[in-house]
Structures are given as structure tokens and as C-alpha cells.
């Protein structure tokens, strides 16, 4: 194709969008900010770690382009690449706050978290999301999905946060790739060899029909430039992540006993009339509906016996402690869930949108109050849901909605505390927990914090499980245990000597006290996620590469800014 955008590599794409002579790369290949985590695993790094940052102009408007190189490690996000994205967005946010308009433009070509740096990928993606949510108050954040890799995994959640999403007809957008769904849920759920099914479900044309992307354009650089320019100057619609009543109505109403082809779903969603949905608050039930840790700890901390609610998989309650009202939220298994793929407590469509609803409810209730109610996310999520209907309806947007709600609450001054009592995995963790400004974890060997199950991670990275376990010894971000996780610096506190399954009264008191301390520690401090970069562990090596990226980018930014 003559003027193809898709066929260009990541750097060429950034250059192609910018007015001639305005391309100025930051942290380019000569700065040699390679990933320090790949070589120890026998993987050849790239000198820009697969992210191209460029300041420049599009039709004389100042822009920052963030372009992902999909050919390098599938565009996966690791520590350095993630820090390049979040740090540059942070600087753009600062410029816009100061009154200098710079439009952020993100070119997605990524499979999501780079599994070889797993937990760094998850942390980075939550930090990127935090910046996008903050930036949307100043400028539209434009995402482009040209295609080849598309936008998947955690980065499909990031895409869902963008003000406007533009895709070519060669692009796909989905939370879980078809191969991973087949691996986790079986070929009956999703046949990853059926290309027609894949494109009809997660291809850009289908995504346009149901509003998950805003424009599908032909693969032509001039057309893409023109489309970007027009969305920079027109007033943006409300964020896609705010369509809570629409999706909750849909999820309540949809009859899952029917077969849902993409065509049928499109027609159905177009006719749907959203109805305002009541906020489901937990109440006392007759018997325990689950014995998961998330369920038990919700009960311990709120004092509600056998908690249940009209959406049984999301428990939420306002509890007063020490004269302070707190909203507790937990995602729990519902064995009778309408969506079979979330019956073990996974975070699915209903969970993402319901958490968004209960968090936004707090924001609204406290809108005119000086003191904002703390929100405590009790975290015990085995994963996101892997399923065909989940992808068709857009689970990436559901998880973006809850991540967005938590980030918005935090920005408005609500202390958001994440309490890890069980597993904290992947998209589930991104949606429920990783937007907390303080994370607390129980020190328990059964807790797993990761981006993907061992079996799937081994398959995707073409290793045996033994080889994968060997690699975790060299790179703590790949490990599955909470002790290794704490060395990354993301935790406010790792609490030892607590019985996670049958805590004593003192155990519960200690956790309550730790939560109060965490809440108090946020008072009068920043509302972003930078706390994680300043902990003892982060400074002692947990986030060395992140900190280096941030410092060097700041230095180069001053210079780049001058010539803009």
C-alpha cells in the first residue's frame, strides 16, 4: 500500500504523523535505556525498550507521541517501557496544568504486560492509566490502534481509558487474546484458529459498531493525520468508562441462554435503553455464599454477617470506624453467576461495571464535602474472566471503568487503600486494587500476585514451567509470591503473623489499625501513585530502572520543551 501506516515500524509511525522537521525523540536508542531484566533471561533487549517518545507538531499543534514497537517482544510493557510512557504522560500533564497545551497521542501496538517483567508491567500499566485519567480533564487523550499486534491485555484497559480511539480496519482490540482464552477456558469457549470468528468478535469494525472504538479509518497516513487533527479540536464525548447504567442494564437484561453472534449482539446493544441502576449495598444474609478470603475479610472488616447483595459478586458497605465512614468493596465468587466464567471470583463484565458504580457513588455522595470518604478495596481476585461473551461485550472497557473510577476517586481526594488478602492477578488486579494509593498485603505464602497463570505464561513465553520458575529467581517481578512482590516497593506494608483464613480478633484489629494508618498517611499528600516509587524497597532496587527513566526524561524534557 502506497501510504500505509500499519507497515511502518514504531519510530517511522511517530515521524510520519508529525509535521516535517518537528520530530524530536526523547530517551531514544542512543540513550540506551534498555530493559535490565531481559538479558538475565537470555532475551536480546532493544535500545529504546520498544517505546518511542517524540515531541513535535501535527498541523502546528504541539503533541507528544508515544509509539509502541509491536515487533519487539510483541509490544509488551515492562519496567523501562512502562516508565517511559507514564513519565512522559506525567510531564505532559504538568505542561497542560501550567497552561501549555500539549496533546498526548498513544499508538497502541501491544500484547499488554511483558510476561518476562510481569509485575513491573502491571504496576506500569496502572501508573499509565492514572496519568490518562488525570490528563482527560485538560486535553483529549487520543489512542490509535493501527494493527499488526493490536491492543491487548492490560493495554486494552489503557486503550479503554482514552478519550478517543481510532483504529484502522487491520486492528483488533480485546482483553484476552484468543490463544489465552482457549488455553484458560477451552476450545469450545473460543477457537483461536478460527480467524473469521476472531475478526468478527474483536476486529475494529465490530468494535466500532458497539462503541468500543470511535473511528475506523483506512490504512493511510494522511487519513490518520486528518482524523487525529479533527478529534483534537472537536469537543469530546463523556469517557466511555462512564456508561455505567447502559452496561449494567445490558448485563442484567441479556439472555445468556441464547447464542450471541456479533451481529445479533450489535443489533441488541443498539436497541438497548439504559435504565438507572440502584447501587447494590451489602446486607446480612442467611448463610455464607462463599468461603473465599475476599468474602471472609469483607465480613470481618465490616461486621456484616453472611454478607450478600443484589449483585452477589460485588460486596460494598459503608462502615464507620474511629468516627470515619469508609466504603469497603470486595469482589467475591458467586457460584450461581449468570456469567459462568466468573463463578470463581474472577473479575468480569458485571464486576468491573459494578465496582465502577459503587466507587462513583462515593464520589458523588461526597462531592461537596471537604473530607472525602476512604475507599478500601479488599483484594482476592484469581484473574479476569476468560470468555467469548466477555470479549464480545468488551471486558476491557468494564475493567477500565473500575480502574477509572478508583483513579478518579483518588484524584478527588478519597484515600484509596488496597488490602491484599488473597490472590491479586492480572486484569482483575488492574481493575480492583492497583489504582490504590496505598497497598497492604498479608504476608502469606499462598498469596499469588502475577500477570498470568504459570501454565499460560510458560506457553506464551515458549518456556517450560521449570524454566519459568528458574527465571523468577533472577527477576523478582516474575515471581508469584508476596515476599518477592514486596521487594518491588509497591506495598505500604506487608503484615506478618496474620492467619488469613481464620484470623483471631487481634489479627483483625491489627489489620484495621494498619488500614487506618494507611489512610492517615495519605492525608495532605499527592493523589497520584508516586508513593510506590519512594518506598524503602523501591529506592533500594525495586524500581531502579523506573527512577532512572524518570530522571533522564525530565532532563531531556526541558530541552525538548524549549524547541517546541
Amino acid at each position: 500500500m502506497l501510504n500505509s501506516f500499519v507497515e511502518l515500524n514504531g519510530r517511522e509511525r511517530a515521524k510520519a504523523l508529525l509535521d516535517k522537521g518537528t520530530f524530536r525523540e526523547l530517551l531514544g536508542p542512543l540513550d540506551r535505556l534498555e530493559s535490565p531484566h531481559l538479558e538475565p533471561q537470555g532475551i536480546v533487549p532493544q535500545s529504546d525498550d520498544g517505546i518511542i517518545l517524540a515531541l513535535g507538531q501535527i498541523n502546528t499543534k504541539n503533541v507528544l507521541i508515544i509509539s509502541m514497537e509491536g515487533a519487539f517482544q510483541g509490544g509488551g510493557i515492562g519496567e523501562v517501557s512502562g516508565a517511559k510512557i507514564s513519565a512522559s504522560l506525567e510531564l505532559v500533564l504538568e505542561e497542560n496544568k501550567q497552561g501549555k497545551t500539549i496533546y498526548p497521542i498513544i499508538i497502541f501496538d501491544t500484547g499488554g504486560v511483558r510476561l518476562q517483567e510481569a509485575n513491573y508491567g502491571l504496576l506500569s500499566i496502572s501508573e499509565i492509566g492514572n496519568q490518562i485519567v488525570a490528563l482527560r480533564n485538560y486535553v483529549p487523550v487520543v489512542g490509535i490502534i493501527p494493527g499488526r499486534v493490536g491492543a491487548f491485555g492490560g493495554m486494552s484497559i489503557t486503550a479503554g481509558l482514552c478519550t478517543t480511539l481510532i483504529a484502522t480496519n487491520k486492528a483488533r482490540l480485546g482483553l484476552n487474546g484468543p490463544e489465552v482464552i482457549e488455553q484458560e477456558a477451552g476450545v469450545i469457549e473460543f477457537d483461536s484458529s478460527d480467524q473469521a470468528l476472531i475478526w468478527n468478535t474483536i476486529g475494529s469494525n465490530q468494535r466500532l459498531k458497539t462503541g468500543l472504538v470511535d473511528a475506523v479509518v483506512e490504512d493511510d497516513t494522511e487519513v490518520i493525520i486528518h482524523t487525529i487533527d479533527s478529534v483534537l479540536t472537536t469537543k469530546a464525548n463523556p469517557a466511555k468508562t462512564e456508561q455505567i447504567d447502559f452496561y449494567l442494564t445490558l448485563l442484567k437484561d441479556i439472555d445468556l441462554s441464547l447464542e450471541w453472534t456479533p451481529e445479533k449482539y450489535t443489533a441488541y446493544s443498539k436497541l438497548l435503553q439504559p435504565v438507572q441502576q440502584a447501587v447494590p449495598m451489602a446486607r446480612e444474609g442467611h448463610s455464607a455464599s462463599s468461603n473465599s478470603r475476599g468474602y471472609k475479610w469483607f465480613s470481618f472488616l465490616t461486621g456484616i454477617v453472611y454478607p450478600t447483595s443484589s449483585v452477589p459478586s460485588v460486596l460494598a458497605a459503608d462502615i464507620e470506624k474511629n468516627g470515619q465512614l469508609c466504603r469497603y468493596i470486595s469482589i467475591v465468587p458467586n457460584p450461581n453467576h449468570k456469567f459462568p466464567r466468573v463463578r470463581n471470583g474472577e473479575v468480569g463484565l458485571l464486576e468491573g461495571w459494578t465496582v465502577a458504580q459503587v466507587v462513583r457513588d462515593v464520589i458523588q455522595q461526597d462531592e461537596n464535602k471537604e473530607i472525602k470518604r476512604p475507599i478500601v478495596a479488599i483484594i482476592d481476585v484469581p484473574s479476569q474472566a476468560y470468555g467469548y461473551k466477555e470479549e464480545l461485550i468488551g471486558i476491557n472497557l468494564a475493567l477500565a471503568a473500575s480502574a477509572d473510577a478508583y483513579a478518579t476517586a483518588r484524584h478527588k481526594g478519597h484515600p484509596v487503600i488496597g488490602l491484599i488478602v488473597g490472590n491479586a492477578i492480572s486484569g482483575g488486579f488492574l481493575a480492583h486494587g492497583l489504582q490504590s494509593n496505598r497497598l497492604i498485603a498479608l504476608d502469606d505464602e499462598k498469596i499469588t500476585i502475577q500477570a498470568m497463570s504459570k501454565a499460560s505464561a510458560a506457553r506464551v513465553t515458549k518456556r517450560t514451567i521449570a524454566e519459568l520458575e528458574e527465571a523468577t529467581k533472577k527477576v523478582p517481578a516474575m515471581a508469584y509470591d508476596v515476599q518477592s512482590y514486596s521487594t518491588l516497593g509497591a506495598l505500604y506494608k506487608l503484615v506478618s503473623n496474620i492467619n488469613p483464613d481464620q484470623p483471631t480478633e487481634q489479627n483483625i484489629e491489627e489489620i484495621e489499625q494498619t488500614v487506618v494508618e494507611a489512610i492517615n498517611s495519605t492525608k495532605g499528600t499527592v493523589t497520584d501513585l508516586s508513593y510506590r516509587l519512594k518506598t524503602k524497597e523501591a529506592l533500594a532496587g525495586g524500581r531502579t530502572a523506573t527512577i532512572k527513566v524518570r530522571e533522564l526524561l525530565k532532563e531531556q524534557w526541558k530541552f525538548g520543551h524549549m524547541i517546541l
Partner: protein
Amino acid sequence: MEKLQFEYTTSQPIEKAAHIGVVGSGDLEIILEPTQGNKTEVNILTGSDGFGEIWKSVLTRFFNRYPITAKITIHDFGATPGVVSLRLTQALEVLDHAE
């Protein structure tokens, strides 16, 4: 993964740094940086082990033809000798345009 190092005596110093390519399947990235003296050092990190001799012949042929003096870093992800030669020549083109 294998690390390889080669050194050539050369005579044409480059004035600017250049970068070309992507560490994608069957491809590689090359970074050329100016250096003092008349030695060109090539440091290679390759995902494909056991091709030292082939690298040597490709590079020797290249430097016989273009004796540029530079510090060269290569990150290789299974590029064939033909692709390596092509990228090296492209890097020269980038340098010409830059100068």
C-alpha cells in the same frame, strides 16, 4: 543468547551517531557511534547461538568495502546474513543523510 565481539582496523571516522532497525523476528537493530582512533569495535548480542563464523564473514566483507571507524552495537533477533548486510548499508545511508 550469545555475545560476540569483533574488531577491525578502519580509516573513515563517522561524525554522527546513527540507529537503524528493530529487534523483531528475523531482524536486528544497529547503533553506530563516533569513536577516536582507527579501530572499529563491534559488539553483538544475538538470540541465535553458534553463528560467530558467519557474523565474521559478513562483517569482514562489509568493512573491506566500507572501512568506517565507529563503535557499533548490534542487537540481533535471528536476522539472516542478507538482512544484516542490508541493515548495515542502510545505517550508512542514514549517516550520509545526517551529515
